[in-house]
C-alpha cells in the first residue's frame, strides 16, 4: 500500500482529534468529488436550480462518507485510497441525479422505440440487412423472452431509462436488473446466431468510450 493511503487508514482508525480531523478531510474530498459529478451532469439538468444541485452534492458526500467509513476494512490498497473513496461519492451523486431527473416522469416499459427502429428507411443492401435483423429481433423479443426480461430490455436498452431509475420503480437493484438484461441479451444472441443473423460488425464496434 502506498504511504499516503496508509496514512489515511491510520488516521481514520485513530481516536480523538486525529480521527476527527481525518474524517473532516475525507468529507471535503468526497464533497469535491460529488460537486465534480454534479458539474459534469449539470448541462443535462437544466430544470434543476443551483441550490438543488448544491444540496444533492452535499447529500451525496454525506452518504458517501458513511459508506466509506463503514467499509474501511475492505480497502486493501489495490488503488490509491483517494481513488477508492472518490467512487463512492461519484456513485451517490450520479444515482441521486438520475433519480431526480426522472422524478415525476413515467418510465416507458413498452417498446415505443420499435416504430422508430422499424421504419428506418432501407437504402443500400446493408440497410436492408439491418431491417431484416430488426424484424428478427422484434420477433425474438416477443416470442423468446419472459415478460420480465422483455420489460427490462425494452426500458433499459430501447427506451433509455437509467438502470437506477428502473430499479427504484420496480423495487429491485441495479445488479439484479443488469442480470436480467444480460440474460435477455444472451438469449437474443443465441436465437439470432442460430438463424445466422448476427452481423459481422456487431462485436467490432464494442468499445467503451
Amino acid at each position, binding site marked *: 500500500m502506498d504511504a499516503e493511503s496508509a496514512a489515511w487508514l491510520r488516521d481514520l482508525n485513530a481516536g480523538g482529534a486525529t480521527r476527527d480531523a481525518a474524517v473532516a478531510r475525507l468529507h471535503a474530498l468526497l464533497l469535491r*468529488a460529488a460537486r*465534480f*459529478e454534479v458539474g*459534469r451532469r449539470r448541462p443535462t439538468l437544466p430544470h434543476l436550480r443551483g441550490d438543488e444541485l448544491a444540496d444533492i452534492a452535499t447529500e451525496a458526500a454525506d452518504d458517501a462518507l458513511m459508506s466509506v467509513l463503514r467499509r474501511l476494512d475492505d480497502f486493501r490498497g*489495490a*488503488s*490509491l485510497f*483517494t*481513488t*477508492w473513496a*472518490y*467512487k463512492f461519492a*461519484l*456513485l451517490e451523486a*450520479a444515482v441521486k441525479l*438520475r433519480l431526480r431527473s426522472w422524478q415525476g416522469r413515467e418510465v416507458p416499459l413498452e417498446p415505443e*422505440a420499435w416504430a*422508430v*427502429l422499424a421504419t*428506418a428507411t432501407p437504402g443500400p443492401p*446493408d*440497410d436492408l440487412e*439491418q431491417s431484416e*435483423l*430488426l424484424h428478427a*429481433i422484434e420477433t425474438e423479443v416477443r416470442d423468446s423472452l419472459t415478460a420480465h426480461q422483455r420489460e427490462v*430490455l425494452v426500458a433499459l*436498452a*430501447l427506451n433509455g431509462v*437509467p*438502470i*437506477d431509475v428502473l430499479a427504484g420503480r420496480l423495487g429491485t437493484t*441495479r*445488479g439484479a436488473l*443488469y*442480470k436480467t*438484461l*444480460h440474460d435477455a*441479451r*444472451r438469449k*437474443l*444472441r443465441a436465437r*439470432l446466431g442460430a438463424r445466422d443473423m*448476427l*452481423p459481422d*460488425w*456487431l*462485436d467490432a*464496434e*464494442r*468499445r*467503451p*468510450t
Partner: protein
Amino acid sequence: MSRPDLRQALVRLLGPAGPELTCEECFAELDRYVDVELAGEDAGAAVPGMAAHLVGCPACREDHESLRALVGADQPL
C-alpha cells in the same frame, strides 16, 4: 434514424459478446481499473471482463468516465 444511430441501437439491444463483470464486481474493481488505466498499463488484462461490462452497462460506464476524469484531473501534468 441514421445508420450509425441504428447500429448503436442494435449494440444496446444485444450487448457485449464476451464474458463480463456484474455491476457489483464492476464497482468493487473500478478504482483499481482506473488507477491502472491512468498509469498507462493494461487495465483490460488487470481486470478481465471490465471493458465488456462498460460497453453493456451505461450507468457503470458513466461512473467509470467520471472517476477517470476526476482522478486524471488530480494528476500532475
